[in-house]
């Protein structure tokens, strides 16, 4: 190394090399993050995935076609018929606006990409952004090395991949970037105390509010951290600057998003931030007064204020409690309540509980989603405590809360993933540091013993670690600084000076600390093991990206002994609807397929995945669980012309309507009590074979799913439920089958129009049979004039 000859210039050169290297590493991380998510495009095709992305895609199309004002005012009359939905006011516009402006920018550069292409690739692009944001955040906490490791980990963490493969055009794709970036700016403000970053932080928070309902996580986590800092005596003016502008500006900006609006100040999710805002102001005042008054006077003042303050606080709290208690849900929305009390949703809101991603995760899902990070996290926490700074305490808090939330809902595993990546990044980089350090020391010793010039190298190697060591203690450092009131420039110089002194002091300390030097063999083996661990992680991530999370779920594949099968039934059915029905026809289906029907078939639906009206969904659920005639009446009153059911019994597609049917019964029964769940269960068991209850065998869902099913194999063997169906031969009186896809996965039925006449009494069997016999005799004798 040239460093030996010219230490100062070499340091600058090293820094320059390091920066360039760092830049290219980040570039490569971005490329990895982008390309690992392209499996879905390569293995399948460039399509929008699943359910919600179809809605986002449709909204983006509207945005690019009609402009932002029409989008803002958009009242959609093609969903939730006949209620309609004010899309402009009920949608988080961040994702749509992002993709829309990307499309617009590309087009203004004459790069004619279709809206769909832009939408498909939005998520991979933003996961690269998220990786870079992770780098920035972790760098703020623990330095560049940890930052790069964390960014690399995040670039390929399976949990995030599951939500951001190409085509998964959903809010989370953008929101995770916004989340991490907001945290980064918060930490940056906390470390620098700069109002500029505080303002950027508020803007970034605004983007997060625009993007995802998960913004409440930020507006609760940051107050928690501020409170933690205050309680542990770490209050500083930097904290005030980091926190107060965020609450004021952030709340004002959040209220500008139509879907949030007054919720930003009205619902309990936001109350914590206001409470902490009050507290932080009081604390600031107390610190200020303590600076003015003598200690004795201060004591007197404290007792006075505390007694007064307590009474006022009690009064305010009483008023708040009364206000909150007067609202039926105690001011909390159902999804948030289910976060605090995991059993809440399944007890009270079947519509929330019915979504699989709202269920608590199982242990294996932790392993699939964050893999080895689960083991690295504890090590990283220890790393965060050595030494504990404002920033690292924030990361720990972030991890702890997100672990709790991920335990409540599978979906929130996504919030845990960045925290796990950051902390594991810290753990990995710390252990690499220690291990390489000890190897270096040993190698140095070996060299010195060989050439008897060891002193300088070992000293050098110690000084190399200094910049990092100094970064470990930004808290201590700046606390000393803030005591003095000095203009900024002076302060900076002062800081540098101080840094120098601190470094000199810590230099000695650290060289003493370097007693933590491990034996050479141990470190080499440990490094190998860590590399092995990383390799396993990479292999797992690539597997997860390629196999587990890339299926678009509108096209299914299955491997069997005779090769690959592709099930493209959904698009077949939607194309049929688009080409064979009137533009204005209404299609009823369970709400899972609402977004796809509006986006792909362009037909009006009754309910869709935006489950804002429980009663309307319950109406459809009731219709599906009623006998044919009642169902016909319900559908007819909603002007429905076609009913679409998803049936997997022929090919063994498990998430079909029969498997979801109990939820329809529950949701329907929640509003219309004549639908009772026990009627559909035989001895508490859900079955569709000959032991099933009459109610079950007569309900519309059963009939529509299994109509003519027996004709396929002669027995009516359902491959999902693995039984023979209970009722095989029946006719539909009020519905007629109009289309069934190739693998019977989607079946479309049409409502028959009402009969032109009403029959008289049913004739007695005797005369009936007689006339039938007469008919037959006559039929032989006379030809039908029709033919």
């Amino acid at each position, binding site marked *: 190394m040239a460093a030996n000859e010219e230490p100062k210039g070499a340091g600058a050169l090293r820094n320059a090399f390091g920066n360039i290297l760092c830049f290219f590493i980040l570039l490569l991380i971005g490329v990895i993050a982008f390309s690992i998510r392209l499996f879905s495009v390569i293995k399948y095709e460039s399509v929008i995935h699943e359910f919600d992305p179809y809605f986002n895609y449709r909204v983006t199309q509207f945005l690019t076609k009609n402009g932002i004002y029409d989008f*803002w*005012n958009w*009242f959609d*009359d093609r969903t939730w*018929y*006949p*209620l*309609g939905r*004010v899309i*402009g*006011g009920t949608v988080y516009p961040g994702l749509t606006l992002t993709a829309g402006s990307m499309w617009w920018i590309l087009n203004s550069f004459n790069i004619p990409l279709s809206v769909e292409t832009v939408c498909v690739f939005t998520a991979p692009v933003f996961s690269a952004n998220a990786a870079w944001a992770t780098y920035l955040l972790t760098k703020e906490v623990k330095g560049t090395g940890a930052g790069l490791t964390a960014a690399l980990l995040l670039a390929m963490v399976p949990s995030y991949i599951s939500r951001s493969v190409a085509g998964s055009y959903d809010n989370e794709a953008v929101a995770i970037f916004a989340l991490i970036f907001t945290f980064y700016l918060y930490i940056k403000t906390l470390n620098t105390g700069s109002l500029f970053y505080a303002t950027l932080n508020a803007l970034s928070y605004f983007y997060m509010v625009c993007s995802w309902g998960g913004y409440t996580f930020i507006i609760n986590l940051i107050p928690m951290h501020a409170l933690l800092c205050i309680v542990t005596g770490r209050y500083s003016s930097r904290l005030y600057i980091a926190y107060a502008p965020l609450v004021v500006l952030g709340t004002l900006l959040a209220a500008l998003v*139509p879907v949030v609006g007054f919720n930003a100040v009205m619902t309990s999710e936001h109350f914590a931030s206001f409470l902490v805002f009050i507290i932080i102001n009081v604390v600031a005042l107390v610190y200020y007064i303590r600076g003015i008054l003598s200690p004795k006077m201060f004591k007197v003042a404290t007792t006075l204020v505390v007694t007064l303050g307590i009474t006022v606080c009690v009064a305010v709290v009483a008023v708040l409690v009364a206000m909150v208690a007067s609202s039926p849900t105690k001011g909390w929305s159902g999804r948030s309540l289910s976060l605090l009390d995991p059993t809440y949703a399944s007890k009270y809101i079947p519509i929330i509980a019915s979504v699989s991603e709202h269920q608590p995760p199982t242990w294996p899902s932790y392993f699939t989603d964050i893999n080895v990070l689960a083991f690295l996290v504890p090590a990283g926490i220890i790393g965060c405590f050595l030494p504990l700074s404002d920033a690292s305490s924030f990361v720990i808090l972030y991890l702890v809360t997100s672990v709790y939330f991920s335990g409540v809902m599978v979906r929130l595993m996504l919030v845990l993933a960045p925290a796990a990546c950051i902390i594991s990044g810290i753990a990995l980089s710390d252990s690499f540091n220690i291990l390489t350090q000890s190897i270096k020391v040993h190698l140095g010793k070996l060299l010195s013993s060989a050439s008897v010039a060891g002193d300088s190298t070992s000293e050098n190697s110690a000084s190399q670690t200094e910049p990092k060591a100094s970064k470990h203690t930004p808290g201590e450092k700046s606390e000393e600084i803030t005591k003095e009131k000095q203009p900024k420039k002076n302060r900076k110089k002062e800081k540098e000076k101080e840094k120098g002194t601190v470094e000199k002091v810590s230099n000695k300390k650290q060289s003493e600390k370097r007693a933590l030097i491990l034996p050479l063999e141990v470190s080499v083996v440990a490094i190998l093991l860590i590399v092995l661990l990383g390799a396993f992680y990479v292999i797992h991530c690539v597997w997860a990206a390629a196999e587990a999370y890339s299926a678009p779920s509108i096209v299914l594949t299955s491997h069997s002994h005779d090769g690959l099968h592709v099930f493209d039934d959904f698009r077949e059915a939607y194309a049929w609807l688009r080409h064979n029905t*009137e*533009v*204005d026809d209404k299609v009823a289906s369970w709400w899972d397929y609402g977004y796809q029907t509006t986006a792909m078939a362009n037909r009006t639906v009754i309910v869709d995945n935006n489950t804002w009206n429980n009663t309307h969904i319950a109406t459809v659920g009731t219709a599906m669980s009623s006998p044919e005639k009642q169902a016909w009446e319900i559908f007819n*009153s*909603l*002007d429905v012309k076609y009913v679409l059911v998803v049936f997997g019994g022929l090919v063994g597609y498990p998430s079909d309507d029969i498997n979801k049917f109990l939820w329809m019964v529950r949701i329907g029964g929640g509003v219309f009590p004549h639908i009772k769940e026990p009627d559909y269960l035989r001895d508490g068991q859900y079955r569709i074979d000959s032991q099933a209850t009459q109610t079950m065998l007569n309900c519309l869902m059963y009939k529509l799913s299994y109509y003519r099913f027996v004709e396929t194999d002669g027995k009516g063997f359902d491959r999902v439920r693995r039984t023979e169906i209970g009722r095989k031969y029946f006719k539909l009186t009020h519905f007629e089958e109009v289309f069934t896809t190739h693998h019977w996965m989607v079946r479309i039925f049409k409502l028959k*129009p*009402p*009969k*032109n*006449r*009403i*029959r*008289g*009494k049913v*004739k*007695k069997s005797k*005369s009936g049979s*007689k*006339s039938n016999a*007469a*008919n037959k005799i*006559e*039929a032989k004798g*006379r*030809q*039908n*004039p*029709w033919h």
Partner: protein
Amino acid sequence: MAIRRALVLPLVLVLLPALISVTRAFSADSATDRRLLVLVDDLAVRSSHSIYFRSLESRGYDLQFRLADDPKLALQRYGQYLYDGLVLFSPSAKIWWLCGPYGGVGFRGFGHDLILAADPSASDLIRDIATECGVDFDEDPASVVVDHVGYAVSETNLDHTLIASDDFIQSDVILGSEKIKAPVLFRGIGHSLNPTNTMVVKVLSASPSAYSANPKTRLSKAPSLTGSAISLVSVVQARNNARILICGSLDLFSDRFFKSGVEKFKSMKKSGNEQFAVEISKWVFHERGHLKAINVRHHKVGEVAEPPMYRIKDDLEYSVEIYEWSGTSWKPYVADDVQVQFYMMSPYILKTLSNDQKGLYSASFKVPDVYGVFQFKLEYQRLGYSTLSLKAGMATHPTRLFLQSIPVRPFRHNEYERFIPAAYPYYGGSFSTMAGFFLFSVVYLYNK
């Protein structure tokens, strides 16, 4: 015609309600030349019922007589019905296909009218057709209607099976504005109506003293049909406004009954049969009581064009023209009970339309403060009149031709009031705070 052919192809029993008004067999254009198929058991009926047939012919109908067991008989050829109406004067017909979807029932299903006359020899088939229409003839094939009080006095009527009934329905539309002066002579079988059937109307019912039984045997048990529950003549108006007349007596239409006098309490020179039969056949063949609604318009007050979408709290005007077919031309229909609903799952507004005596009905109202997809629903069902059922919306809007409903949107974000008077204290408060903070900062920073 093309539409009609397209409809015949799917071979359904019934029409889509939405298309009824378009595809009705009855139309003003071809009203003057309408082909009726008359099926008879015996061609002698042609002469024995000649007065009735002549009255039909004089009103412009082209009658074709066929024997019911004619093997070459066909109702339709190449998917087109050959006749616009069917008169079944063949009680003992056993034409099995008549009952099927391509026969009489299906025929009516496509909006064609039917007159069905039975007598004690009615075959199962005729009974089946009646049942399909919601009318049940007495199950005992030998029974006839007997009335020992309201019988027509004549020397041959010893078993009181020839009854004179004057229990008509009170409807000027069905039976004409002129009151039927004399009782109607009836000899035949009675029928009962399915009480849940809202489409069947009893036109001529038996007197309370009548019953249905076999007069030649002793009554061993109480007759199943008694009193005024027995309907002698009924009419059905199907959902597509096809009309059917069901009568238990073929003789009611005969020349003999038309001409004979009637004596019940007091003697009349001529029975009411001719007037009754002619008037009711006018109704059956849509010469009376047939309404049409055209030119449905709605727009905002002060505008003419139909908007693609309304906003909540818009003032709008709705108008529709309703005419009645008089047999020769469309005359304005005048009534004060036509109502329009502004409907989304339930009627938010129900308003009686005012008319200008020339057939133009209109109403104006304010759109309710609820957004969603609404319909202008006009449902007009009156005894004897054809059903008007309009769900009107964008019918005239070029891009959404088939849309029957109209969306009502909420305010746009810039349609709200910008400055609310009640909020002026708050505006004042916020601006004064800003100014105060600014002053405070200036004083604090530079006052040392």
